[in-house]
């Protein structure tokens, strides 16, 4: 039972254009969402997060949008740079302000930025 789904295993975007990575979830109890970025042979690194009380969070070139009614979130990268080429994981958690934040991850999307 995949509670967090990233339906695109890969995405290729030209340098300078916008990259849009999508994520869908099924558990209505999820109230905190994160994006992680992973380079080969390294662990995932935190990129950006959003609480369910918001519908948008922006940090430099990265913006996360949350559509609670559709149970959908997306990560926008503008403009895309070659260093953004990596695997991006969407993750979610439910009501864990303290204690274990048990992140539930999607399968990941491999983003390739072409020069």
């Amino acid at each position, binding site marked *: 039972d*995949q509670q*967090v789904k*990233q339906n695109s295993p890969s995405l290729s975007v030209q340098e300078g254009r916008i990259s849009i990575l999508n994520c869908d979830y099924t558990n209505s109890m999820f109230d*905190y969402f994160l994006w*992680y970025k992973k380079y080969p*042979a*390294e*662990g*995932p*690194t*935190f990129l950006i*997060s959003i609480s369910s009380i918001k519908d948008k969070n922006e940090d430099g070139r990265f913006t996360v949008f949350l559509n609670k009614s559709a149970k959908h979130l997306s990560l926008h990268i503008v403009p895309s740079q070659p260093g953004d080429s990596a695997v991006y*994981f969407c*993750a979610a*958690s439910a009501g*864990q*302000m*303290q*204690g*274990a*934040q*048990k*992140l*539930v*991850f*999607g*399968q*990941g999307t491999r983003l390739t930025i072409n020069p």
Partner: protein
Amino acid sequence: GAGVSQSPSNKVTEKGKDVELRCDPISGHTALYWYRQSLGQGLEFLIYFQGNSAPDKSGLPSDRFSAERTGGSVSTLTIQRTQQEDSAVYLCASSSRGGRETQYFGPGTRLLVL
């Protein structure tokens, strides 16, 4: 270094053998997590340690899996009588105090059970 470290980076073992995976969290981080990523899947939560509290073992897939954290720092994940379905990348993460504090991941241990 200042990050989370894990050893070994790769482990090949025969079905039925026991394996131990090690995690060194970021110094001062009280919360420690183990996850695993099977082929084609997202990361799956296994176990959580926070300070001296009893660990949250709710994600462990079977009683062949166990973990301990000594002295509130280094953690060891042990898999007994390994099976081929245990083949995965095992990732450790730490955070300053659990909750919604950012989890910092190590590079993982790639386990292959033949």
